């Protein structure tokens, strides 16, 4: 009887330990080029299982320290990112860039207290205005992974131009269209282009702050860089790293189709529910979270298309 009880207790406590979540993002730095590394997120939406690890963040090892590109979706992520970076280099963070004001890209800022955090002015404003609301949303979507996370705004702003950081030439591109401020960073030494969320790869783009015309123009700017002789790789905001411009073309094709589909649906007289029920074209059928992002995008983009299609009544 005693034995049985002991066994029961042991089994029970094992179960308890197993049920206790570790909140480990399992971040593994993927080498893209000499001194350039990326933590590749999952092709998913936010969940209590992935804790918001759906985003690509990265870092460049320079002579003066680590240049960090985006800080991830939570305080825990930012802390774990630092631990994972130390496995690659003992150097301390030199500077953090936030590519734009979406929460999966900057809510790890808190873990980089004391390090300059820089972004475009529009991004800084967006984080100041909406950061807390975003954090609340992520608590709802990702649960306890978010524990202790607070929105921390960038400490300084930057504009387009070529800068030297730790002896490394970085080309900063102040673009927009995915949001009001989208920073792309081209590391001239390695030829690696950090595109932020202007580029998605085999994962449907998100559009809550999108202006499609501007986004398409920004993609043209990025594609021109991929034609430069030194270009070696694109790091998209979401999805796998590539050595060619394919994800730029795919993102462009999705945005053009989406824009056209909204206009056509509005011209055809469809109601919002009917637009939502439409299938994806075959070319996007394999894209991760395609239907989910399509439905969200309808909510963001259809009202304007609809308004354009309806004539003024007197």
């Amino acid at each position, binding site marked *: 009887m005693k034995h049985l009880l002991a066994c029961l207790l042991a089994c029970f406590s094992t179960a308890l330990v197993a049920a206790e979540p570790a909140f480990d993002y399992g971040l593994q730095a993927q080498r893209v080029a000499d001194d350039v590394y990326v933590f590749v997120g999952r092709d998913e939406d936010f969940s209590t299982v992935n804790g918001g690890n759906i985003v690509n963040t990265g870092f460049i090892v320079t002579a003066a320290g680590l240049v960090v590109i985006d800080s991830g979706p939570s305080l825990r992520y930012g802390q774990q990112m630092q631990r994972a970076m130390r496995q690659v280099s003992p150097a301390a963070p030199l500077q953090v860039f936030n590519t734009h004001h979406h929460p999966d890209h900057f809510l790890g800022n808190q873990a980089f207290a004391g390090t300059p955090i820089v972004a475009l002015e529009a991004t800084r404003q967006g984080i100041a205005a909406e950061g807390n609301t975003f954090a609340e949303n992520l608590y709802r979507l990702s649960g306890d992974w978010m524990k202790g996370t607070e929105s921390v705004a960038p400490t300084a702003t930057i504009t387009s131009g070529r800068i030297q950081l730790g002896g490394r030439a970085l080309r900063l591109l102040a673009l927009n269209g995915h949001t009001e401020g989208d920073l792309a960073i081209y590391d001239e030494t390695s030829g690696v282009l950090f595109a932020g969320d202007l580029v998605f790869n085999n994962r449907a783009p998100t559009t809550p702050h999108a202006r499609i015309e501007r986004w398409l123009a920004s993609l043209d700017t990025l594609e021109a860089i991929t034609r430069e002789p030194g270009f070696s790789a694109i790091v998209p905001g979401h999805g796998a790293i590539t050595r060619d411009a394919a994800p730029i073309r795919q993102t462009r094709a999705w945005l053009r189709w989406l824009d056209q589909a909204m206009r056509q649906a509005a011209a055809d007289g469809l109601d*919002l*529910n*009917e637009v939502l029920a439409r299938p994806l074209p075959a070319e996007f059928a394999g894209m991760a979270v395609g239907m989910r992002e399509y*439905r969200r995008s309808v*909510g963001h983009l259809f009202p304007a298309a609809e*308004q354009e299609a*309806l004539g003024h*009544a*007197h």
Partner: protein
Amino acid sequence: MGDAPTIHANMSRILDIVIDRKAQIAEMNDQVTNLLNPMQVPVTVDATALGKVLEVIVFADFNPIVQILRFYPASASAYLGFRVKLQQSTPVRAAVRTADGVWHVGGTWVNTVGGGCTAPSAAAAAPEWQKQLNQVSARQWQSGELAGRLRLRVVHPMDTGLVAGIPAFHLQEIRLSDSSDQALMRIETFEPVSENPVFTLQQKTAGRVKAIGRDNNGNDFSVWIEP
């Protein structure tokens, strides 16, 4: 199935949840609907399978203002598309009274992050929009699958009165009639209808339509919608 209303009130897919003469709700645990914009939840009520319909009442059980809208189809079909603000996840239902005096009830569960009724309208935040108050844009479709369709958008903040310092300010009624003054449909709108409401109606054939409306502050409009 045949003689019950169909309610579409879902961001992720159209649901044909049909519960005749019983106030049952099929619950749906689809994470996707958690991402629904609570300010613009699309609802399509299609009671055309019920025969002659006199009155339709649409309501959301857990909304602070339960009643959303009523409509009275005359020569237009017993069909109406519109959008609502929801404060939290709730059943959205339609009660349909047919010419034989019977009420038919159908509904669906809508998951939403909520807050739609206590968020200020965009117009309240930027009052210059109100210069366009009650401006109507509209269009009719004359051919194809959707022949006879009419869509109508009215600029109005549709303030619920549940936001501190912003009194209730909403459209109360829209009457649609044809060129010989025969009624197509009368719609009574309440606070939960979305800002700048858009309505989708179905007539037998397109023709000149007059739309007359007023809000709770006595502002009104009267426009012609050409076919």
